[in-house]
């Protein structure tokens, strides 16, 4: 499986994720969230940054179901889902991820028919600290 190339701006995200925390970069001056992580705030041009914990709740904004040809590790699990999640606390921060049955489950552990735009989801983390999403029980 592909691993993210962790750069200086993004490193805190993965550090928090490894501890099971979802944190998003925010401007320490104007408070605006920004994603992906960057050195400077596009609203007020401040370089002061903080990593704010978010609730980890969101809704599915869109999703796709990739089929081969794919990289071998992914082809082995295809067809699987990839979702974009709109965070409840920061709607313009839409994270790409996978909807899974339980933390650490395979990318194809939820049947495509069980996915719909607008569904409520909650973040979980797999064994490697990669964020995943499960359907919220409401």
């Amino acid at each position: 499986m592909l691993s993210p190339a962790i750069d200086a701006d993004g490193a805190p995200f993965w550090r928090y994720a490894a501890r099971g925390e979802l944190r998003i970069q925010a401007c320490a001056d104007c408070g605006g969230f920004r994603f992906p992580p960057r050195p400077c705030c596009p609203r007020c041009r401040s370089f002061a940054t903080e990593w704010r914990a978010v609730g980890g709740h969101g809704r599915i904004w869109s999703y796709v179901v990739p089929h081969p040809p794919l990289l071998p590790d992914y082809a082995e699990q295809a067809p699987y889902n990839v979702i974009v999640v709109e965070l409840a606390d920061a709607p313009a921060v839409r994270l790409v991820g996978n909807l899974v049955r339980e933390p650490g489950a395979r990318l194809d552990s939820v049947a495509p028919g069980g996915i719909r735009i607008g569904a409520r989801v909650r973040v979980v983390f797999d064994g490697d600290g990669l964020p995943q999403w499960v359907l919220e029980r409401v």
Partner: protein
Amino acid sequence: MAGLKDATAIVGIGQTAFARRLPEDERTLACRAVLAALDDAGIAPREVDALASYTMEETDEVELAKSLGLGDLTFFSKVGYGGGGSCATVAHLAAAVATGQATVGVAWRSRKRGSGPRPWTNTTVQLPTPAQWTRPFGLLRPADEIAMLARRHMHEYGTTRDHLFNVALACRNRANQNPAAVMYDRPLTREMYMTSRWISEPLCLFDNCLETDGALACVVVSRERARDCRSRPVYVHSAAQGLPAQHHGMVNYWNDDPLTGPAWTAARHLWKHADFTPQDVDVAQIYDAFTALVPLSLEGYGFCDRGEGGAFTEGGALETGGRLPLNTGGGGLSEAYVHGFNLITEGVKQLRGTSTAQVPGAATCLVTAGEGVPTSALLLRN
């Protein structure tokens, strides 16, 4: 200030054969296409003093100039962001010629995507931003990235697979009239489309462009010089690039409005400097690496309102005789996927009156580059 409006013209076009596999290498194909374009214009290679290309082009200016015996170059430009740069090559040459930095400009594209490597097979690829936020989750290919926008467009606006089929069919029908097209002898039916294999749901096989070997080129000179050329000039009426504020490439999902892409930015500038409006466009060559880019572009370039790009394709609108004949050489979906450059040369053919799917009396043509990435567009007229 007069600006760029009709100050320059495309006076030569050239291309190699298009095929899944061609024996010659990219540099050789590039040389053949450029020589063909210069011959079409009636201009000697040593008169060329400007070159423009876009990223993912392996043949560089030095190679081309040395191989072909071009003159001293006083302008050269390479536009970023892959398929978004196709029209910008002509725009840069037009600007250089109109401002006296050069007199004869050549733009080209040579590619072996039919027989060459595919990006998704490269397992050693590093994942810098934004890929580190998308690819580990299996959103690997451009088809996956665009399918995400297509699904959202379907959800918000009721766009259907039949709408996407209308796009694929229009391109295929035109390719069936074009002997140079890879899909010349391969008709497409709705049943074939609806039963084809998925690539990335909701996009199926026929929503994806071809993988093609081939090269193309065109020649840009001043309006005055164009009068002395061998072929009928096609004027660069308006040109624009577009990189919207807070845009982030193909995976622009974290923008405030991911369905309003670079086309919208390019279009604003394009129309501002034009003497005509979308209603006056006779024929359009819209970048079609994926069918789903066409509804987004129809909205962005102002042929319909936001959300109506799918519905616009109904009733044969994109076919010959329809409201907006589309990709009349077959486009990237059915003629050849040469990073959109065939759309430029097809636009020129339409305005010369020499297309294999000629729109009678076509006098204005929109050509666009890749939507979903920093893009560019041209309004051409005869």
